[in-house]
């Protein structure tokens, strides 16, 4: 009788501690434990499976120049040791019992995540396994050494990867003050400087319940999941909010003056070149309101037969077709950006410098200026169709459990789940005025990095022209922030 009473009291206490918060998103339940841990449960009974994920608001965004690469090193050390070590019999047995072949892990600029899929009937055990790897896991020196070697090899591989070289060159200029906050890989020098103490400091500071969220999706009962999360994570001690002191923002404009770069890119075939103008965009951590206008603008300019691409095709010679033109905003908490680009065919008879300038001037100087001040540039039907495309894209992205959990985890770390849930309503209220305001702030009163990529053979033919026109030449030995 006493035990029954105690059990009832405990159950009541748990229920009171983690009562569900309603969400307008269909089939999504939200809870918050006393220790600050958030829980999102998405029910979709299409398949007899469940996905369990833990995410932390961390990654490159939380690095300094002195410890860049530390979050990825932490993840690799964890998976080299506790999860994958042959001696880790309890983990191996748990995975076998749960049908889990692989525990996935990922460290990006703004998030660290671990996740796996298992039969939905075993989700209770899955949450216990998730706690085993997410809550203060043990680390060991041998795993750190092995992980460090892997991470250094990855840094070396980036220096041979044209895409990484190009992105790093862009990032180094557009986010010049804190480029390491966009670089989860870090440098060989910083990786060499990190020891076990650095990893445990990281664990104590960033891998804490108030900076984490659990996402569970599939054929699951939200209340049962809530109870299981409380069993596995309820004793996780609360800690200080690592984001209490806000990050100093990345400056906007990202550059002091329009900056021109050229990269001899061996991944592009001869006879094909790419132009891109990139701007600092709205950061969701600072100016989420502008992101709706930014998204709507991205959708407005996307149709191949729309006014933007049609005008560029008509007025800029040599572009490889409307589908080769792109213009979009990328959502990030700390470092949003906007890209306007196109592909063209280099012509020995025409200067590529002139073509890059012509493209940039037409896109920004004429088309975007016009769409900002001329209310007839896009029709009301264009706006409706653009909103529909965005909502349709969102529906597609969240159609499956994996898709929904991916989206929830992304938006939880990048903005908030409320932002994600409220997006359709906010978008419905966004129109020409918001798009115009976005363009005024983030394009017209902003400065860009303009980049040209072309095959090294094409580049060589025009190298002198680039050098004489103020283009900085990107190479593998000057592209990365840690080389300067």
């Amino acid at each position, binding site marked *: 009788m006493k035990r029954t009473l105690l059990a009832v009291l405990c159950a009541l206490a748990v229920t009171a501690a983690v009562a569900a918060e309603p969400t307008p998103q*269909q*089939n999504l339940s939200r809870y918050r434990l006393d220790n600050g841990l958030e829980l999102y449960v998405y029910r979709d*009974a*299409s*398949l*007899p*499976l469940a996905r369990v994920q833990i995410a932390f608001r961390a990654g490159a965004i939380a690095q300094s120049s002195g410890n860049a690469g530390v979050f990825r090193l932490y993840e690799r050390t964890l*998976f080299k040791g506790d999860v994958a070590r*042959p*001696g880790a*019999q309890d983990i*191996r*047995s748990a*995975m*076998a*019992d*749960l*049908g*889990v*072949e*692989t*525990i*996935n*892990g*990922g*460290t*990006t*600029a*703004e*998030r660290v*995540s671990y996740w796996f*899929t*298992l*039969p*939905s*009937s*075993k989700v209770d055990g899955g949450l216990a396994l998730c706690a085993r790897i997410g809550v203060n896991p043990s680390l060991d020196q041998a795993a750190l050494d092995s992980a460090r070697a892997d991470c250094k090899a990855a840094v070396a591989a980036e220096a041979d990867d044209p895409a990484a070289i190009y992105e790093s060159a862009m990032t180094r200029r557009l986010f010049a003050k804190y480029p390491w906050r966009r670089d989860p890989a870090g440098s060989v020098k910083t990786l060499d400087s990190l020891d076990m103490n650095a990893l445990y400091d990281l664990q104590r500071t960033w891998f804490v319940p108030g900076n984490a969220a659990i996402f569970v999706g599939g*054929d699951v009962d939200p209340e049962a999941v809530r109870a299981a999360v409380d069993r596995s994570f309820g004793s996780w001690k609360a800690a200080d909010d690592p984001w209490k002191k806000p990050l100093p923002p990345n400056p906007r404009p990202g550059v002091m003056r329009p900056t021109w770069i050229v990269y001899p890119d061996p991944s592009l075939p001869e006879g094909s070149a790419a132009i891109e103008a990139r701007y600092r965009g709205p950061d969701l951590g600072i100016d989420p309101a502008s992101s709706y206008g930014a*998204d709507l603008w*991205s*959708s407005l300019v996307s149709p191949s037969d729309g006014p933007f691409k049609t005008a560029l095709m008509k007025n800029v010679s040599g572009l490889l077709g409307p589908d080769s033109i792109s213009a*979009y*905003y*990328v*959502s*990030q908490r700390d470092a949003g950006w906007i890209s306007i680009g196109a592909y063209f065919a280099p012509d020995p008879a025409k200067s590529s410098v002139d073509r890059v300038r012509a493209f940039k001037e037409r896109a920004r100087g004429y088309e975007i200026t016009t769409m900002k001040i001329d209310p007839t540039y896009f029709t009301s039907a264009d706006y409706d169709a653009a909103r*529909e*495309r965005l909502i*349709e894209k969102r*529906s*597609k*992205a969240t*159609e*499956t*459990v*994996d898709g929904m959990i991916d*989206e929830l*985890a*992304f*938006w939880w770390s990048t903005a908030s789940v409320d932002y994600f849930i409220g997006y359709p309503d906010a978008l419905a209220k966004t129109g020409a005025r918001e798009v115009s305001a976005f363009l005024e702030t983030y394009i017209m009163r902003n400065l860009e990095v303009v980049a040209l990529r072309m095959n090294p053979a094409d580049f060589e033919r025009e190298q002198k022209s680039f050098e004489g026109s103020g283009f900085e030449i990107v190479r593998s030995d000057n592209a990365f922030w840690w080389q300067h």
Partner: protein
Amino acid sequence: MRGIPSAAGMGSVALLCSILSACAGAPSVPPSAAAPAAVEAPKTPKPGPSAPAPATPPLRPMAPKAVPAKPAPPAASSPSSKEGRAGQQSPYLRDILASYTHLALPNGSEVYLLKRQGREVALRIALSEYATAQSATEAGLEALALDLATKGSDDMEAGAVARALCAASARLDLALDGSYGPAIELSCPRDSLYPLLDVLGQSLASPAFRRDDFETCLMNLRVEERREHSDRALRASAELGAALYGRASLARWPVGSADTLAKIRLEDVERYWKTEFGGDRIRMSLVGDVDPDELAKRLSPAAGRGIGSLPRQAAPAQPSTPPPSTVTGALLIRAVPGSTGWTVLRGEFGLPPTATPDYAALSLGLTMLDELLGRELRAAVGGDETRRVSISGEVYGVGSIEIAGGGDPAAAMDAVQWSLRSLAAGRCVGLRSPGGDLESFAEGIADYRARSVVEYYSGRGSSAELATLILREALRGADPMAFFRVADQIAAAKPEDVLRVVKERIAGASLSWVALGDPALLSGLEARARQAAVQ
């Protein structure tokens, strides 16, 4: 806009294991005089056979099953319902079966609906009797006809269907996944389903067959054919299929070949449509937020020129059965010019019907084989990262083992044979064992059940994928909801079931093999085959 992609997965052994059965016979559909549509909802689950299925040679035809046209009692009220040998349905299966509705339209069309609250709609239309309707010399014709027939009716303006789709933020695609012939796939917001169904119905009823649409569709098909031709795995499968079936229809991919596509004229499409198409050939699956009663009303002949009012074909094609295999236990070796540094080794075997306990037992056996192969291939080819193993079956009711990469195919074949022998001896890799030690099926089966369920269902939850799976089973004459029953049947499978089915289906000489690619890499395997032939 969401921009930066989420994290890359942690490195893992890239072994996939699943069995995906497909068309091995079309449903025999009893004519229905009921009007409007006969609604069967929810469908009573079919009990699995209690006796083991007889051993079946690879690619042996399966007897067509009738799709019941009469309404069936709800699953919950059927005391005789059972899954596998456990005799109980899981809550998952009970719930999903309660969301399923089967409509038999008066004109012979069959509609399979899985209601998913809040989801957009995926609709898939294919024609039954694909395998016999299209002759070997006209491969690609049915795909072209189906594609062209949805471009608009003769009383619509050119481009009207495309405009309707665009206005509804919908997509209409020709699907050529090889499972059971070509299909039309519509993805749309739920609110636009019925207007689009009307447009599609009108188009199918009297297609305009415009020449410019024909040229566009033919060009798209040619591009797709080129893409498939350059896909090594698809090519290996096609080579094996051609060898097994000769000129019979199932040897061909729905996309056709460069030769057959070059000969097809617009007049051929019109003739094919006239002689082969009818409402009674329509098979349609829908997954999404669709009300079954409303759907039945909208599809009834009284609703107008919709799919429900399409006339029957005057002389419907006979239900198809695949031809028996002409090669069993064979190894075909094909050198491919320009294939320096790569080979594909592919073995195929016959699958039991999806809704049977034997299918679940084989699925478990293949998960075990996957682990054994992974272990042996790592030893045989070292850390060759480009090597990939997959066990899957996409075409006409076969499963397959496929090993692609740059290593020695003879060594890969040795690894396969060792793995198959271990399996036939009732041994599997212990999933808890740090060193990958072997253990008996009885010791390992509980862990493999969970692993097998995850591997079977992972990545298949989209409405389009579910619509494909439902339609696939319907077209082969099986229970359209068979895919959803497999988890319960895996849970009920016993070690002795797995051993028996493994011996029947994949051990010994039950597999037919093809190896293609770099002649230099194939030389060892070829010499060995020659030697075996001499002996």
